[in-house]
């Protein structure tokens, strides 16, 4: 499993490692822009930056006219057109025959975009997280098979308390008797979010922001939403369209109760998405902002200012790192717990 995983990394990074170094020209001495740097880190990217090394990732594009195309992002990273495409601010657009693009008055490109299926930094980080999960949990499962009825050992004993935590502290009390059906999903999201969060906290490996990406958080929240809806019993739906135990005038002539319940129904996945996205992204932004302070002071007051503020900055970012480690676990816990509570409300048997 691990070897397979390494092979994927090598395959993905082999799209031309060279060509990319010492290409830090687009700054062009216009000073340090903290906002841009931070957003650049937090947003998705077609490259992985490890120190000065830029590892280009594969770009996969689909359009009706040109079909499926795949090439290295290094072809587009300099803002030059390639093969009828151009990339600006990590977005890929079609170009005309001569490589020109239409722009509006503010300089924004107005051209059509192909469907971007690229293995971006986030997709890569996602695969990395999933590969880690497969490796860890399949070896844990093997450990249980090998040492049947014995005390856990190695990685097995690291993961067992967490698995038991999800099983006994999250799933069982929130869902009740039918918890076992939802346990694989809960364990998967818990460990995906936790490991993904931790991956984003490791410095120098490219600054992954997997779980802090709204698309990733949204997909997980949608899975929770779909599973809740599919498993919702009669009582669950009845509570939404005809809540029992409320005065009739809340339902007729204006179906106030239904409106409220329906808002609650659709806001659950949205809230799940935004909470995870905002918490993780905010953590990344804060740490980067503290680090950026050094460069801002360096620009304002010279090297002395930079060095001076670096003491504070580093102290604060270490503090934030410690908090983020906690948040990484906490958000995984909260997401899993809320999912479990939604499942619990869907399968709950009411005795009216």
């Amino acid at each position, binding site marked *: 499993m691990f070897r397979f995983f390494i092979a994927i990394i090598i395959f993905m990074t082999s799209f031309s490692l060279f060509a990319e170094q010492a290409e830090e020209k687009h700054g062009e001495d216009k000073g340090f822009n903290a906002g841009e740097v931070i957003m650049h880190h937090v947003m998705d990217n077609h490259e992985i930056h490890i120190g000065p090394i830029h590892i280009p990732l594969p770009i996969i594009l689909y359009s009706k006219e040109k079909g499926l195309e795949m090439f290295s992002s290094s072809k587009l990273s300099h803002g030059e057109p390639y093969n009828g495409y151009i990339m600006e601010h990590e977005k890929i657009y079609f170009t005309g025959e001569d490589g020109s693009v239409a722009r509006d008055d503010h300089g924004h490109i107005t051209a059509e975009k192909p469907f971007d*299926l690229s*293995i971006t930094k986030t997709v890569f980080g996602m695969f990395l997280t999933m590969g880690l999960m497969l490796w860890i949990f399949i070896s844990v499962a093997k450990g249980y098979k090998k040492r049947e009825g014995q005390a856990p050992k190695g990685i097995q004993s690291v993961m067992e308390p967490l698995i038991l935590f999800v099983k006994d502290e999250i799933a069982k009390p929130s869902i009740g008797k039918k918890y076992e059906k939802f346990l694989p999903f809960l364990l998967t999201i818990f460990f995906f979010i936790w490991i993904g969060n931790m991956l984003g906290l490791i410095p120098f490996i490219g600054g992954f922001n997997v779980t802090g*990406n709204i698309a990733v958080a949204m997909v997980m929240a949608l899975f929770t939403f779909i599973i809740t809806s599919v498993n919702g019993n009669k009582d669950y739906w009845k509570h939404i369209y005809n809540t029992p135990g409320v005065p009739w005038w809340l339902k007729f002539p204006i179906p106030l109760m239904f409106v409220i319940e329906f808002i609650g129904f659709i806001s659950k996945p949205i809230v799940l998405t935004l909470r995870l996205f905002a918490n993780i992204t905010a953590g990344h932004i804060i740490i980067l902002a503290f680090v950026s302070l050094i460069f801002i002071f360096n620009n304002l007051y010279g090297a002395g200012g930079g060095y001076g503020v670096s003491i504070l900055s580093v102290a604060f970012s270490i503090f934030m790192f410690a908090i983020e480690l906690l948040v990484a676990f906490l958000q995984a816990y909260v997401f899993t717990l809320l999912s479990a509570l939604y499942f619990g409300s869907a399968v709950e048997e009411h005795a009216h």
Partner: protein
Amino acid sequence: MNPLLPELGLVLWMSVAFLVILFLLKKFAWKGIIQALKDREEFIDRSLKSAEEAKAQMSQLKSDNEKLLAEARTEREAILKEAREMKEKILSDAKISASEEGNRLVASARTEIEKEKLQALSEIKNQVAEISLSIAEKVIKNELTDKASQESLVNDHLNKAQMN
């Protein structure tokens, strides 16, 4: 660049990858892990229960033992008591028979003595008769010689006989 707008490509990748990882982990990891944890929980429950049972059995055994001990103790007491009584009885029996024997011996000794006494008395009577005869013989002999001397002789002999 709006971080709030989800990229469609990413949504697609995440959906597919998440389904795949969910399936793979469910099949190859969670199933085995959950089953193993369940088995172990049951095993621990069972072990605790059987330990509890063993404990109950132990205490049962202990109380049985105590009962046996108590029984043995009372039995010993009873045996000792019986022995003591027997000793007492033997002693008293012995005393009674001894006193009876003594009485019997005393009684037989008394009859013997009585018999001896009677015998001795009859012998004395015989001797008295003999002595009287011999005295009478001597008196008769002395009368033949001298009256006075005969009288003194008779007196003499009478005195002697009284002495006897």
